[in-house]
Structure formats: C-alpha cells, structure tokens
C-alpha cells in the first residue's frame, strides 16, 4: 500500500453509508454545532457528482430550494455526517450531472432506476 492511503486508513474514522451513485436522491443527516448544542439538519437532493479517492472523497448534492438551485459538497469521511439514506435510485447515463444546472422544472427530473 502506498504511503498516502496508509496514512488515510490510519487517521480516518470509518463510517459506513449505503452505496449510492450519481443520480440517486439522498437525504444527508448533517450534524450542526451551534455553540454547545448540536442538532441534525437534513439535506435532501440529487447526487450530481462523486469525486476523489480515499479519505478525500466527496459527493455533491443538488436540490431546488424556493426555486433556487442549492448545491452542497460533503466529504465522505467528514465526522459531521451522521447518516446518508437513499430515497430513490436514479437512471442516468453519465457520472457527473452538471446538465441539471441548466434545467428547471420537469426537465430537471431524473428517471427512476428499478433495483
């Protein structure tokens, strides 16, 4: 094993999420710390990109909030992610769905994939 992945394996705390792909609709439970208190906020949207390797792997979730597109990048190994649940599997033909940014309304839908 090369040195970088060795270090990443030693340092990062493993967390198991269900395996999702680009196009899937997910709910990310994100821990938000406000002063002393911490609470969980949910972010629901489509996964439009998964990139990186090892402990620097990230995924991008896009949702439409009050008709404004909002994208959020989550590091896979972030301790702030409590859980990820898959709501819907999407049927897409590419791994990076940036074309969704130019679409609104019905055109921005992703077909469902039967599993």
């Amino acid at each position, binding site marked *: 094993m090369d040195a970088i992945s060795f270090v990443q394996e030693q340092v990062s705390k493993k967390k198991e999420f269900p395996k999702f792909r680009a196009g899937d609709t997910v709910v990310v439970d994100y821990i938000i710390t406000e002063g002393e208190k911490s609470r969980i906020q949910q972010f629901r949207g489509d996964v439009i990109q998964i990139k990186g390797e090892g402990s620097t792997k990230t995924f991008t979730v896009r949702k439409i909030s009050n008709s404004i597109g909002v994208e959020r990048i989550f*590091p896979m190994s972030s301790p702030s992610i409590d859980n990820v649940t898959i709501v819907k599997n999407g049927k897409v033909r590419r791994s990076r769905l940036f074309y969704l940014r130019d679409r609104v309304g019905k055109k921005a839908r992703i077909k469902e994939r039967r599993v």
Partner: protein
Amino acid sequence: MNGIIGKKVGMTSIFDDAGRNVACTVIEAGPCVVTQVKTDDTDQYNALQLAYGEKKEKSSSRQLVGHFKAAGVGPKTDVIEFRDMNLAKALGDTVTVDEVFVEGDLCAAVGTSKGKGFQGVVKRHNFKGVNDATHGQHNRQRAPGSIGAASYPARVFKGMRMAGRDGGGRVTVKNLRVLRVFPERNLILVKGAVPGPKGGTVILHK
C-alpha cells in the same frame, strides 16, 4: 537542533478533533544513518551528521564512498549536519522519526521549491500590475512600471525587483504542527504544505 532527513510523499487532508478539515503533508522521514559524530573535543562543537537516501557507488566520489564506509553503509544521496542534537548516537547508528518528533511538536521543513522558470514581476514579486485594461492601457497589464528616476541617478539600483528565474530555491517553512508519527512505516504527518515536489528531499528540524 534535532532533525531528520526525509522525502515528501504527497498531500492529503484529515479531520481533526474539532471536525475541521486540515490539509497536511505526508513525509517519509528516515531512517537516517549517523555518518559522523562531532564533539567539542574533536571539532569545537557538537553535531551529528545524518545521511539518507540510497545511491549507486559508481555515481559517488571515492572520498564519499570511503566516508560512508566508515559508518558501515553504502553511499547516500543526502548528508546533513544537525548541530547540538541531543540524541546519544554513535557512528553507524540509525535515527528514526519517532526518536526526533512526537505528536504535537512544532517543526520546520526545509526543501527546494518547485522551479517556475522565467517569470514576470506579478508572479515573482507579487507586484499588482496595472489592474486596468482601459483608460489608454495597452498590453501593460502585468508590467512592472517605473524602475527608477531619470538623469539622476542615471542608473538602476542594485536589487531592483524585476522579472527573472523564479522558484527552485531553498525554502524554509516554520512552525508546522506534527499531527501524527507512524514509526512502523517511517512516516510523519505535518499540518500544512512543505516546499518542493513529491519525492523531493525535505529536512525536518525543531
């Protein structure tokens, strides 16, 4: 000054205890061989000379081969002297990274920065350039501007910052926090960036 010689492996990022994503550099440090022990009696000061990195005997001078032979090792690529190292080491002993650094230490990293070639003043000396494409400006956006007065002094002062070769020099970055030490693989993880390319020699000292 305790230190060790190593090789930059690359960068990654980890999450610290506060949950912040911290950029850090992985360095393969040591094991180094003590190739000379200098003491007050012999050299009027105390120091340990450490060597790191294998190289072929045919690409080393006879003198160096003999010097390394005295320590019982083959030729090495990097030889650095660390003054007043407080490790009791004899000639031929090895120094490992966990003997020099523990987690939480502050260290300095010395390396040769990546060469940038011939660069203009904006990149090389952080000049601002003209910042204006209009108001009569034409192809002067990254120009240095005036480099001095006219008939007096009638010359350009020495040390005037101009375009030229950039990078490729010895750079020291101080106060890098040691995040983790992995003695089983001779690896050390420091917070922040370290000068030089991957595979470049890095001197770490306190």
